[in-house]
């Protein structure tokens, strides 16, 4: 929460300062680039550096969820030049013609992107997106309360940890945990598999302390629970605040996710947008971003310059072996109604 608040503040400061410099006169010929990103998801000086280098004004806005970003872009009236949504949302936006093709010739720094993060399923030829950050979903646990090794989702069903477990207040993520536990794909639309996942979650509900959002970070840091399902980048932050916390990716596999830069079809400044994307892939800038945010960078040169301790941390950089069974979310289309029905059934008990 603290980080979100500071993110909002930072965004407000950036917007205000941009607005002020915009009013400073003598800058009428300056182009204005509009960027739409997650809250607290960029290095502190990056925007300023970009503005100075290219003599461009940046209007920087933030969103809290993919869904909110989608609703705002879909409703029209906005003219963002760059947005940074996640995998399944990018797929949905491509399908609905909401993003423009990116000319990779204008993004020379694209060569630094690690090969395994290119041509991902949501954008098979990287025509529409350039990876910005990536990560996994896993279990964070408190070593003083959990003495056994944590390597499976099953531990979240262990009655020993009655009322010590936090799940995510997100239907997609929580149902994915149950699907993976059962050995199914987390993108399934099969009603039988979903039915079984539902029963697992209903069985689990009695020992879950709560389904939470961002407050999970404070909760785990303060030792309010033993186990929680979290995003890897948040895990890096939590571990830095409480040394008793450790992160694990269950052996059944988990969710692997990407936040990538896209150019919405309403963009007015394609050239500058591509300059911005290229700038974000620059080694120094990518390093500054990943150091500030704590999430994992797909930029190879920046990764080499990271603290070796962090590279060993599986929360930040899991091995390929650990990611073997991880899957990327795919947009569910109409099946999202089935997921919502399941979630309502679980939470209305």
């Amino acid at each position: 929460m603290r980080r979100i608040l500071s993110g909002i503040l930072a965004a407000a400061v950036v917007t205000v300062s941009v607005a002020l410099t915009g009013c400073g006169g003598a800058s009428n010929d300056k182009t204005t680039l509009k960027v739409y990103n997650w809250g607290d998801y960029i290095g502190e000086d990056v925007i300023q550096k970009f503005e100075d280098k290219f003599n461009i004004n940046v209007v920087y806005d933030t969103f809290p969820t993919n869904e909110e970003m989608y609703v705002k872009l879909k409703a029209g009236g906005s003219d963002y030049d760059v947005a940074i949504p996640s995998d399944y949302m990018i797929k949905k936006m491509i399908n609905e013609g909401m993003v423009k093709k990116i000319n990779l010739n204008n993004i020379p720094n694209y060569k630094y992107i690690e090969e395994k993060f290119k041509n991902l399923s949501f954008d098979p030829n990287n025509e529409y997106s350039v990876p910005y950050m990536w990560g996994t979903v896993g279990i964070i646990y408190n070593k003083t309360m959990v003495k056994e090794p944590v390597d499976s989702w099953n531990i979240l069903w262990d009655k020993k940890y009655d009322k010590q477990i936090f799940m995510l207040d997100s239907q997609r993520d929580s149902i994915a945990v149950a699907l993976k536990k059962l050995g199914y794909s987390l993108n399934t639309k099969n009603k039988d598999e979903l039915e079984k996942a539902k029963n697992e979650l209903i069985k689990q509900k009695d020992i879950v302390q709560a389904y939470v959002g961002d407050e999970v970070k404070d909760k785990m840091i303060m030792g309010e629970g033993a186990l929680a399902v979290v995003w890897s980048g948040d895990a890096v932050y939590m571990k830095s605040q409480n040394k008793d916390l450790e992160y694990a990716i269950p052996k059944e596999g988990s969710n692997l996710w990407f936040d990538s830069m896209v150019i919405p079809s309403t963009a007015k400044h394609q050239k500058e947008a591509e300059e911005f994307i290229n700038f974000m892939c620059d080694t120094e800038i990518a390093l500054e971003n990943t150091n500030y945010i704590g999430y994992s960078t797909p930029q190879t040169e920046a990764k080499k310059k990271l603290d070796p301790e962090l590279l060993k941390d599986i929360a930040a950089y899991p091995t390929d072996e650990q990611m073997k069974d991880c899957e990327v979310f795919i947009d569910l289309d109409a099946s999202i109604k089935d997921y919502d029905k399941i979630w309502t059934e679980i939470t209305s008990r």
Partner: protein
Amino acid sequence: MKKKWLSYPYLVWMAIFIIIPSLLILFYGFTVKDEQGFRFSLQNFYRFCDPIFFSVLFKSLWLALLSTFVCLIVGYPVALILASKEYSKKTTMSMLFIIPMWMNFLLRTYAWLTLLEKHGIINSILSFFHLPTINILYTNGAVVLGMVYNFLPFMILPIYSVLMKVDNKLVEAAQDLGGNWVTVFRKVILPLSLPGVMSGLTMVFMPAVTTFVISKLLGGAQYTLIGNLIERQFLTVYDWNFGAAISIIMMIFILISIAIMSRFDEDKGGGAALW
């Protein structure tokens, strides 16, 4: 009325922010979207006829009624004390009720999260005195507590403003005629305060039945209430039509409850005057 034009900005405001959105909700609620666009349908309402959604509705109504009842039990005596002529700290007291309302509702609810935690402030104090700790966070109790805390002023203030206007001579007359305080209260004060009670009930019940933040934060999202269901239809499922239909059903329940309450609320100028 020469200054009729003064009301125009307000009328425009109402049209843009109340009437048009209501029409949109009606439109979405009675249509479904397919390849050809929108088409009239009652399908959204059929979909709601499912035991799960009824249990969500029932739970929301039950928690809201419970909170309203607790607010009444707690709030009425407070209003009585505030309104009593002998009580001198009246201003201080009512300020104490009003000042928290200056703070954002979300922040206050977040504060309860910290207070009620297992290792939170309340439990730290309790364990310091070797008293048993309480674990009510993420239960129905916490949701009701959050609603009562947030909505209590909406119960106290209308009752207080009605009680203030009760002519003290009536009370004195009743006492002169030999009524003890129970009789005076039952036969004079209580009937006269009913309009305030009714508007208090409405003021508390309506936000309580539609809340989704309190159930999310203090209930740990373990309880889908009708407000959460509507929120999800708009933000996660993108099914605005179903979301609008649930909103319509919700509005019908609220209108019914207002209709019931306004039957008691003869004195229209009573509690409503404050608002």
